[in-house]
């Protein structure tokens, strides 16, 4: 039935048969079915080249590319998290060490203390000449046997060797008085460490207390409850200190009182002027302006203010010291021999020689031997360990 002149009859054959040929037929088993259509974004020339190159890469390597990528990511994270900050910190430290405008520590008038020798020069006759040597030993802390053993080890000979101790020869260990006797016997040089300092202050405090006057009445306050030992005790630590004090003879205490905070050894080849202190010094601050408490206690230095600190949170003081010495003319250079920092242990650098290697806790006792040419060697003995 025609409608408006069109044939509306249903076709007699399926519609598909009307398509001229089957060129549109796609077989999904054919590899071409899965091939990506070339969008011609890369020039066929280039494409061919990439193909050639990638063909040359062994399959095995191609297969591991994920692993390599993973390693690369790890490296990147590692850099970001660890090496990068470390490098920038190092750069910042260098920049801060170079910056001189901030030098502020040591402008004040150095605090003066009663009964404290600040600086002393070592007798010139002890300077290493010919076969003479200087033997510097780190914190002994009453370990007399170890000290004797070490001296035997280095073939110490009173006749031509001079012994230098870096302080803290007393307290903690078994025989503090014995170490002082030994030092006296050998005519050793020694500096005042924080333990000698505390001991001497405690002795002064006690003797002052004993000398205190009675009150205006007959009631003698020395015997009253005001000034008895108990009420004056500052805890267990103070008790240990007073017990230690009783081991020494009056003459030994006098010897300890004479120990300087800084010992100046004259110039020695290769080392420059040698200084012995217990803990450390701040570079470029005149010796006369260094705070004695800091010289006996410092571990680090805040580079922003050049203020030293007992804490470990800033830059190691010896880092700054070495950095500054390298810039100086050879005649201006100074080398510091010190102890105090058992945790960092033996720490030998060009211009700083750290000798505390934790003997009293079972570490080593360290000796630095300086010969007449300024050459240094280190000898150690193992220690028994007397405290936890």
């Amino acid at each position, binding site marked *: 039935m025609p409608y408006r002149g069109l044939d509306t009859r249903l076709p007699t054959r399926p519609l598909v048969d009307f398509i001229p040929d089957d060129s549109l037929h796609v077989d999904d088993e054919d590899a071409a079915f899965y091939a990506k259509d070339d969008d011609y974004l890369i020039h066929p020339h280039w494409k061919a080249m990439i193909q050639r190159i990638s063909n040359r890469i062994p399959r095995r390597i191609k297969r591991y590319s994920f692993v390599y990528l993973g390693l690369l990511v790890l490296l990147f994270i590692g850099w970001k998290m660890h090496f990068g900050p470390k490098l920038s910190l190092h750069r910042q430290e260098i920049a801060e060490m170079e910056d001189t405008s901030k030098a502020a520590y040591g402008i004040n008038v150095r605090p003066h203390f009663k009964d404290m020798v600040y600086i002393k020069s070592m007798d010139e006759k002890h300077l290493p000449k010919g076969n003479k040597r200087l033997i510097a030993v780190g914190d002994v802390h009453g370990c007399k046997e170890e000290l004797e053993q070490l001296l035997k080890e280095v073939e110490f000979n009173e006749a031509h060797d001079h012994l230098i101790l870096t302080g803290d020869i007393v307290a903690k260990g078994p025989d503090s008085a014995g170490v002082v006797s030994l030092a006296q016997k050998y005519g050793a040089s020694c500096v005042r460490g924080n333990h000698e300092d505390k001991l001497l202050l405690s002795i002064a405090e006690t003797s002052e207390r004993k000398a205190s006057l009675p009150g205006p009445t007959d009631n003698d*306050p020395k015997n009253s409850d005001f000034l008895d030992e108990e009420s004056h005790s500052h*805890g267990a630590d103070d008790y240990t200190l007073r017990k230690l004090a009783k081991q020494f003879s009056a003459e030994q205490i006098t010897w300890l009182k004479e120990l300087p905070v800084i010992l100046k050894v004259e110039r020695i080849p290769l080392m420059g002027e040698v200084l012995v202190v217990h803990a450390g010094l701040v570079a470029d601050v005149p010796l006369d302006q260094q705070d004695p408490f800091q010289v006996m206690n410092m571990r680090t230095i805040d580079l922003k203010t050049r203020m030293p600190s007992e804490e470990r949170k800033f830059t190691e003081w010896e880092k700054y010291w070495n950095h500054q010495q390298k810039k100086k003319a050879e005649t201006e250079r100074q080398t510091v021999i010190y102890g105090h920092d058992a945790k960092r242990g033996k720490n030998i650098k060009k211009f700083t020689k750290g000798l505390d290697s934790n003997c009293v806790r079972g570490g080593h006792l360290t000796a630095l031997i300086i010969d007449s040419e300024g050459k240094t060697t280190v000898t150690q003995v193992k220690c028994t360990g007397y405290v936890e």
Partner: protein
Amino acid sequence: MLLPFTFAVFTLQYLTLALPSDFSKRHVDFSEFQGLTKNARDRTRQNDPAGKYFHEATFATHYDGRFASTKLAYTPRRTHLRSLVRTYLDTMHSLHIPTWLMHGSLIGWYWNGKILPWDDDIDVQISEPSMAFLAAYYNMTVYHFTVKIPPEAAGDELDEAGRDYLLEINPNWTNNSTLDLHNVIDARWIDMTTGLFIDITTLRYNQSSEDTAEGQKLFCKDKHTYMSKSVFPLRESEYEGKPVKVPYSYAELLEEEYGKKVMTRTRWEGHYFNEELREWVIDGLP
């Protein structure tokens, strides 16, 4: 320049026996100092809270209104403060009472062993046994010193022949509680000519604290706390030319309280530290 003190122990002992109670009058008020003060009338603040022992002056907080009626100018205040410290240290030294510096005074000592010129109070501490001793034997004692006051510092009526200083103990010093807010100062050393005074506080052991690696806990009634290892053993030094004690770890205490900058900054409060003079100088002066 300061003669060894020739002190007159006043017979005011009966007053120290009076216990603080609601109806008792101030222990030693203005009327009791007739003949010892140049003040014609009392300049003590009258509306202080009940139970407060030491009263400041009406015109300023760092003066005693029983002995002064005006504040001092910059230069005379420095001179009198210096005499105040020197006489105090002299007296404590003679009495064998160890006394040490804290706070602002410790800063001044660190820089050049002197009072910071802009500081108008002096902070000293003593131990509990020392305070017990002073309270028992030396409360309300007056010390006479000959003090030479340079003419530029002296007022018309300031007498260079002799000055009296009063050691007054707060009877509430025995109260160990920091809740006793109105009596945080345990004693005062008072210049009876200018009304300037030194606040003396007792460093107390915290009885409830354990012995630690840092020693024992200590505190003052002004709520400052310390570890015994950083205060003791004390060091002997000098302050304004007189023997004084300072805490063992003075640098650490200063850093804890004020930060490192307190030991390195050379400009404070309109002054700068002149390295050549070794003095703090007012900005603008050479």
